[in-house]
């Protein structure tokens, strides 16, 4: 629903507009390129004064993403949230986070340690990755 390539989001159903589904493509030129992730976006009742709750539905091997729950560690989704962020800006931030992880505060320490060895990282990434089924 946006003009930005590689990201999109849409309400899950017309019954509940607080519940969205998003799709992110891995940015080109990064280890994630060519892969796609599905994510769920839930808007709290006091949105946009509180950030939406976003997590990966597709397993994502990434230093700042919990591999089991899909929870994301990103400052703008927590204490740095501002009401001016939109779904589009959030997804763009997430997309860039894929290529530039913040290894200082990892949710997935293994991934953070592996980041310096791209080949091993890629094999771990592909081991966990599940392609999106239509």
């Amino acid at each position, binding site marked *: 629903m946006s003009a930005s390539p590689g990201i999109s*989001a*849409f*309400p899950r159903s*017309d019954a509940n507009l607080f519940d*969205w*589904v998003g799709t992110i493509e891995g940015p080109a030129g990064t280890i994630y390129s060519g892969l796609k992730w599905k994510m769920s976006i839930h808007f709290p009742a006091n949105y946009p004064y509180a950030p939406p709750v976003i997590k990966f539905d597709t397993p994502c091997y990434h230093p700042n993403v919990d591999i089991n729950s899909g929870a994301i560690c990103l400052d703008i989704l927590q204490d740095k949230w501002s009401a001016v962020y939109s779904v589009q800006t959030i997804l763009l931030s997430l997309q860039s986070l894929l290529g530039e992880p913040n290894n200082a505060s990892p949710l997935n320490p293994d991934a953070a340690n592996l980041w310096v060895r791209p080949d091993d990282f890629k094999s771990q990434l592909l081991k966990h990755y599940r392609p999106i089924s*239509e």
Partner: protein
Amino acid sequence: MRGALYQRTPLMNAYNLAFQTHVYSVLPPSFTRGFKELVTLTFSLSNVTAGSEWLLAIFNQTDRSSNRVDAALWSAFQRLGLSERYESLISSICYEYVEKHIWKTCVGKWDEPMLNTIRDWMANKIVPWMLMPFARGAKNSDDAKSMLQGVGSRLDFHVCKTLADIRTKEIFDIIVDYPDSMNALKDLKECLARVDQRSQLVQILRRANKRRLLHPGADTKDILTQYVSIIRCLRMVDPPGVLLFKSLTESRRSRPDTIRCIVASLVGDGESGDSLVDENEPIQPLQQLQAEDYSDPNWEPEPIDAGPDFRTSKPSDVISTLVSIYDSKELFVKELQVLLAQRLLTITDGNYDRERRNIEILKIRFGEAALQVCEVMLKDMTDSRRTDQHVQAQKTMVLHPTIISKHFWPALQSSTFTMPGQFKEYIRAYFATAFKPDKKLAWLPHLGTVKLDVELDDRTISADVMPLEAAFIELFSSKETWTVAELIAEVGNVDRMMALKAVSTWVNLGVLQEQETDQYKLLNVAEPEDALARIRAPAPTHVEDMPPITSVQQQQAEQMQVFWKYIEGMLTNLGQLSLDRIHGMLKFAPGYDRNIEQLAVFMEAARREELVIAKDGMWKLNK
């Protein structure tokens, strides 16, 4: 009367029974036919004596109590029990006779009220006749009246039905003949009040419309004229307008230019000068859909045959009715905008009074708010002149632009060719002086006209031409021979048709000459006249003058492109979806007003372009 006396005795009864049984059993099958003919004959002699010699000869008339010659015949029928036995036959003969009379007198006769004429004729001719078979025992006129009441009202119903049948069959022509056929419509109204044939009328009218009016050969304007007549006529027959609503709704959207025609006639734009609207009719605001006011003491329920989507309409003027046939007046306002834009852009003398007047008239109909956009458009035009004067005061320019507000004008067809040479300079110079720094000017080079003089070696040609034509001739001043492809390459983004058309304008003016296919040469010295005549190509008529304004249809197509973004979004994120789901979700998109059929058509088109795949009623993106 003697017969009646005898019948009281049982013996007489038994005799009658036996007699009748025997007589009836030997009657040949042809008897009924003969009887029928005999009875039919009596119609012609109920009052007159002439031509009734054969009757007198048979009966040797002695009964002078009746002044009718056929009295003896009827009493003979009575005595033989035939009146009773063939009562239904006698009435059917009567019906047939009346029916035949109505057909004979009424078909095609619409200029005078026939129903009353027929009723008079009935009173004078048929009622006296009916006295014989149906009111024989009557002692006085009151008695006769009460005896005739039942059969009489049945007969009256039959009269109404026959007339209604005739008029229903003729309804299309009656409407064509309106207002000369006013009386026929009044008759029809009265008949329909007695006979329930309203749905039949609607059906026949619809069928006639389809067959005779809505065929491809008919001009939209003629169709509208007929519609207006239909509206007027049916309003007369059926004031609440149920019939009207039913007869017009189906055929309404069959033509894309209907709205345009209506709008054109709203502003009195008819080429022939006569608009659909009666000048004498006061201009009224369009009816708003309003909740029914049940506290109104004059409230009446909706007519019984009104459909569920029938909108109660108080009698209103013709245009209101035409507009109300469509779902919303927004469509009209949109089309009106397009029309207004076209007209405003063609005005070169700066006289917008006519348009202003039209807008004021339309404001009364559609309301101030709906026409606000049109107001802005008008204001743009006058403002443009002011701006132009202001700019000219600072620095004299050859350019007189019209500055329009993008958001308030209907989408203009965008074309982005670049003007070469001196035109480019003019435009650049103008931009430099533009005096509202917070506004951005976007140049629309394909609109407008250029007044120029072409100076050639032996002559000077002055012309008002399209900007593209001006651009081309300018190019010829730098080089004498150009191919169409070269010309297009020079100005950019122009399609070949437009380019050819522009070139042919100059060919017709004798400035250019086609040397080979697609190659043109500037004629610095005029060719001799006869040579010119030979070269002068007929302007390619197949190139239609494209209206510079995007029509409502095109706008809708563009809108659909926006919705496609939404559809793409939902199919990306939600996987495959049914048409219902897509439709339901799209309802959240701003401005989405399509119905599911339209969406289906759109999705089908997307499938043909291989953007989506449909399987088992589920749609998904083609990846």
